[in-house]
C-alpha cells in the first residue's frame, strides 16, 4: 500500500491527521503531509477511512 496526496488541493480539514496520525500530519500552513508513504497493512482501514472522509479528495491509496 502506497499513499500519495495533492497538497495543492488540500483544504486543511485535518480529518486525516485525526484519523490516522501516524500516517498523516498538517504542516505549518495546515496542509497535508504524508509521514509514512508506505504504511503497514494494519493501518489500511484507517488510511482508507481518511481518504474517504477527505473533503477535497486529495488522498490516493495505491495497492
Amino acid at each position, binding site marked *: 500500500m502506497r499513499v500519495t496526496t495533492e497538497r495543492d488541493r488540500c*483544504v*486543511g*480539514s*485535518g480529518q486525516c*491527521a*485525526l484519523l490516522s496520525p501516524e500516517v498523516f500530519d*498538517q504542516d*505549518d*500552513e*495546515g*496542509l497535508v503531509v504524508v509521514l509514512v508513504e508506505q504504511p503497514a497493512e494494519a493501518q489500511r482501514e484507517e488510511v482508507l*477511512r481518511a481518504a*474517504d*472522509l477527505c*473533503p*477535497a*479528495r486529495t488522498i490516493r491509496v495505491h495497492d
Partner: protein
Amino acid sequence: MTQSADTAPQAGSPLPQFPMRRTCPFSEPPEYAGMRADHPVSRAALKVNGKPAWLVTRHEHVRQVLGDSRVSSDLKRPGYPHQFHIPEEMLAQVRLMMLNMDPPEHSAQRRMLIPEFTARRVREMRPRIQQIVDEHVDAMLAAGGPVDLVTALALPVPSLVICELLGVPYEDHARFEEWSAAMMNHDLSPAEYGAAVQALDMYLDELVTRKENEPGDDLISRFLEKNRAERVADHADVVTMARLMLVGGHETTANMIALGVLALLRHPEQTAELRADPALLPNAIEELLRVFSISDSGTARVAVEDIEVGGVTIRAGEGILALNNAADHDESVFPDPGTLDIHRKEARSHLAFGYGIHQCIGANLARVELETVYGTLLRRVPGLRLAVAPDELRFKDDAMVYGVYELPVTW
C-alpha cells in the same frame, strides 16, 4: 435515464415548497425519506420567492455536488437559490463572505485561515476551553436550578472561545449575539437583515482598524499581517471575514450544545455509557452532529455548467440545495438513520459540516467544544434533567441554523 427540469416527476403539479419543516424536533423533515427513495434529485419552489431549485437528498449525490468544481457558491450569480429576500440593488453591493466565494479568491482567503484551525492548534486550545466551561458550570451550580442552559452555557462558551481566538472583546457579546441571531432568521425583512449586518460590520470595522494600528495575539491580527505580504483582501474583506468567523463560530456550536444535551437527556442508557467511558464521546458527538445536521440548507450552489447528478441533468444557471440533513439520514450509509446510536461505526461520514472546499473550517474546534461541554456536564452534573415538559420547548424551525430557543434544566 436523463431528465431535465422540464420533465422532472413533478412537472405539471405544483412544486413542493422549500424549506420543509421538521414535524418531530429530533427527525429530518418527513418529506426527505420519500424524496431519497423516489426522486432523489428533484425540483422544489423556494418559499421566499417561488423560484425553482434542485433538491439533492442522497449522501452520494450531495458529496458529488459539493465536490464538483462546475458548481458555484457565488450568491450573486443568477439562479443561486436564495433563502432570504435580498433586493437586486442590495445584492449588487454585498461583499462576499468566504463561503460564497469560488476559487481562486476562496482558496487565497481560506489558505490564510487554515493554520488557525489545524488539529494541533485546536488541541492546544483545549485547556482554556475546559477552563471556560468549568467557570460556567461553577456559576450554574452556585446559582442553583432551574436555569436556561442556552444562556448559562451553550451560548457563552462558544462565544467566549471565538472572541478570544479573534481578539474581539467579550464585553461586547450581548450586542453581536443579538445581531448574529437576527442574521440567522429566515423570516426577517430585507431591511431588518441589512440593518443587523450593517450594525455588526460597523462594530467590526472599528475593531479591524484598531488591529491594523495595534496588532494583538489573535486571528484577525495574524490575518492582517499575512495580508500585508500577500494582499488577498482589502479592509472591507477583512471585516466580512471577521463577521463570518464570529457568527459561524458561536451560533452553530451553541445550537449544537443545547440540542446535544437535550438528546442525551432523552437517552439515559446511552448517557450512562458515556459517563462510564468518556472515550466513547468523540463518536457520540459525530452521531449527534449527524442526527441534527443543523445547517441543512447551508450548502446552496448554482451550476456553472450542465452537470448530471443521479441521472438528472442540472442545467447551467440552475440553483441546487445539497441537503446535508437528508444525506445524513440516507439509509444506504446510515442504517436505521432516525435512531441515535453513539456506537454507530459510520457516524463520522456525516456531512453536517458540509463537504468539499467549503467544509466548515472550524469543525475541529466545534468538536473540541462539544466534547468539553458534554464531558463536563456528564461528570459534574450527573443529575441533570429537563425542568419543563418536553412539549413546552420551542425549536428554531424558522432559522437557517436549527436549534432550541431555551433549554430549562435542573439537577
